[in-house]
């Protein structure tokens, strides 16, 4: 949404350890202004009792624990000085007499810091070169043997060097940097504290379960046992998505059956085009169209008042009528095409034979058509469910002011809430629920993932 606040900057405003949901009215400093105006933002007091092993820092001046970590923050290299005061737990320093607290002042100056964030240093490259030279003779000796049975060599032989490089570069880049690693990073991030960028990689950057605990139990010290608000939204999102999926199936099945079994030729092509056209219209506009219909002064209220059913406008938006109708509409075509494709491959003679043998109308569908269309049903239902549960635009536009969709909470954590780890935890919960749903569908309908994704 275009609220005008750069969400990548908001994270700075949060002092990391607080699990509270901040109000949107908090000042949001930008990274350029944040570091000089508040030089103490990097102070991490690790108090006795809460001391983790990482709080013992080597007392070499100018070489503190944060700087040895590879994931130093972008701020650290930009020349601003961060002051890190670490009060270590006396119990953990046996050399000192008991009771004597040691105050260590570790001044971490970015300009004196070794450039830890350039990734590959000279040493790494040197080691890599030496290793390559050591391995080379061995590889040369074995290459002949390997090339006969190694897929990699066959691959290059088959495609040529240039094409192999192209294929590998794009496929590996896609899988590693766009599919796998981002998900893993999000998973990792969901177990972290909400820290300032300057603290990332520092002693405070430890793993925690609190983001997940917050979803279930809410803030510490709340009177309620569970975080009812968010759990209720989550449950509502899942249940509503299931209901929307069922309604979609009920709406589409008859049409898909009719199209597959009775319509032929140019009629069919026209019908297809008509079904596809609304799908090409922007999702936002499709939702907005429903807002027009169900608004206070919209068509539905005018109509109902006009024929005398209602006296005054009914608030369809608050009652979520508009939301559920709009969601059903939004992904209806992802239901109809898999169903159509599956039913189309059914031999009409089977249906005719069953009818001749005296099977009832219901039996024909439950015993012949539906079992045959299983992959299509699984595919359609999965796609509709996933898209509905993951919808953000339609709930934003059509949802009532008091009702939330789970994705909206995730979005709030990112945008106005400024707590990305918390948002990641919520997003991960959504992802897991979707995966569970897909697994259930695959198990129930006995189909593979390939059948589901094919549209």
């Amino acid at each position: 949404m275009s609220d005008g606040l750069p969400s990548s900057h908001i994270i700075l405003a949060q002092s990391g350890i607080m699990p509270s949901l901040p109000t949107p009215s908090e000042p949001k400093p930008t990274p350029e202004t944040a570091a000089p105006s508040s030089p103490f933002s990097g102070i991490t007091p690790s108090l006795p009792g809460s001391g983790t092993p990482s709080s013992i820092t080597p007392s070499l001046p100018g070489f503190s624990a944060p700087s040895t970590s590879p994931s130093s923050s972008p701020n650290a290299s930009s020349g601003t000085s961060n002051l890190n005061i670490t009060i270590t737990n006396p119990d953990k320093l046996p050399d000192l007499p008991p009771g004597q607290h040691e105050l260590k002042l570790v001044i971490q100056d970015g300009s004196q810091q070794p450039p830890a964030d350039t990734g590959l240093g000279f040493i790494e490259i040197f080691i890599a070169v030496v290793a390559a030279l050591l391995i080379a003779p061995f590889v040369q000796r074995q290459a002949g043997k390997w090339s006969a049975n190694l897929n990699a060599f066959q691959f290059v032989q088959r495609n040529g060097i240039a094409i192999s490089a192209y294929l590998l570069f794009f496929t590996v880049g896609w899988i590693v940097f766009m599919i796998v690693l981002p998900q893993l990073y999000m998973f990792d991030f969901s177990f972290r504290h909400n820290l300032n960028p300057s603290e990332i990689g520092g002693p405070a950057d430890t793993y925690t379960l609190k983001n997940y605990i917050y979803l279930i139990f809410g803030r510490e010290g709340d009177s309620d046992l569970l975080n009812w608000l968010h759990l209720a939204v989550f449950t509502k999102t899942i249940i509503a998505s299931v209901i929307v999926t069922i309604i979609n199936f009920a709406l589409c099945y008859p049409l898909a059956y009719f199209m597959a079994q009775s319509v032929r030729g140019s009629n069919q092509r026209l019908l297809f085009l008509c079904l596809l056209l609304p799908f090409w219209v922007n999702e936002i506009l499709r939702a907005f169209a429903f807002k027009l219909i169900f608004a206070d002064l919209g068509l539905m209220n005018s109509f109902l008042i006009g024929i005398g059913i209602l006296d005054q406008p009914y608030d369809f938006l608050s009652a979520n009528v508009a939301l559920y109708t709009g969601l059903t509409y939004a992904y209806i075509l992802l239901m109809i095409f898999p169903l159509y494709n599956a039913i189309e491959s059914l031999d009409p003679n089977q249906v005719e034979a069953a009818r001749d043998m005296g099977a009832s109308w219901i039996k024909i569908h439950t015993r012949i058509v539906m079992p045959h269309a299983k992959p299509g049903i699984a595919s359609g239902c999965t796609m509709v469910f996933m898209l509905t549960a993951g919808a953000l635009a339609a709930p934003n536009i059509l949802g009532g002011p008091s009702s939330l969709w789970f994705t909206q909470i995730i979005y709030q954590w990112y945008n106005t809430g400024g707590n990305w780890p918390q948002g990641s935890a919520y997003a991960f919960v959504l992802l897991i629920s979707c995966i569970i749903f897909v697994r259930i569908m695959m198990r129930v309908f006995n189909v593979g993932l390939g059948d589901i994704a094919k549209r």
Partner: protein
Amino acid sequence: MSTEHLRKWVIRGYIALFFLYLFGPLLIMSASAFNASSYPTITPWEGTTVKWFGELADNERLVSGLFNSIWIGIGVVALSVPTALAGAIMLMQVGERVRPIYYTIVVSPVLVPGVIIGISTVIFWERFGSIVGLDYETTNNPFFLTIVGQSTFISAYCMLVFIARLQRFDKTQEEAALDLGATHVQVFWKVLIPFLRPAVLSSVVLAFLTSFENYNTTVFTMVARGTLTTELAGLARFGVNPSISALAVVIMGLTLIGAVIYEVKKRREEVIIDKSKKRAAMKRTKDTEAAAKQAATVGA
């Protein structure tokens, strides 16, 4: 006979209602763009006007969003079409044992909610960028993030298009070209790409349109900037000005023209394939008939 008659009418009524549901909301929205009423509605009708279209051009955020959308669309096409092609060719070549795993991975972005793809892209580049020492400004550039984030799943869509076409590719063509001394690069550009041309065109259109109308991923990756779709969502949520209906008419008009061209082309291609299949099948039956005849005469 009367039950058969009734059945027919029930089906017709059902289809009519279904299409009313599909098109009704869009028609109502389009109509409201021409209503003079200051609130987007068609009841009551306060006179026909086109003034809302004029207001569109004055909205700077929408205009800049439009240009952002176009640039991002071009970037997504440039990234996701080559990626999808590589992914599809790889699928044809990976070993039997690896194939299911590989397919699951590359197809999974289709099923992962767009919200999650957006979030994970932003987090990954923010953290990964600082680890390997990439420039902060680069890895947090909204255009970079949006293009990468959208390409994650648009590549998967396009890959499915390529796979469908590649499955009909005759490998012997490639082998023949290689035997005659063509290099691998020449085979790629002169044999494979011409064969895949329709699929490439489909993917380009699909990638651009999907990118253009994407909201769920873009809203996270664009950070403070906006594309036409995210600006539109802001207007649709808070705005009560009929100019959004006018914009809807414009966008719908353009997308529908694009979609009709795309669909018609696709259908035509399918018809050609069907015809060639039929011809091949007929030829086969003729051949077998001839062979059978020959066998019969030989036997006699």
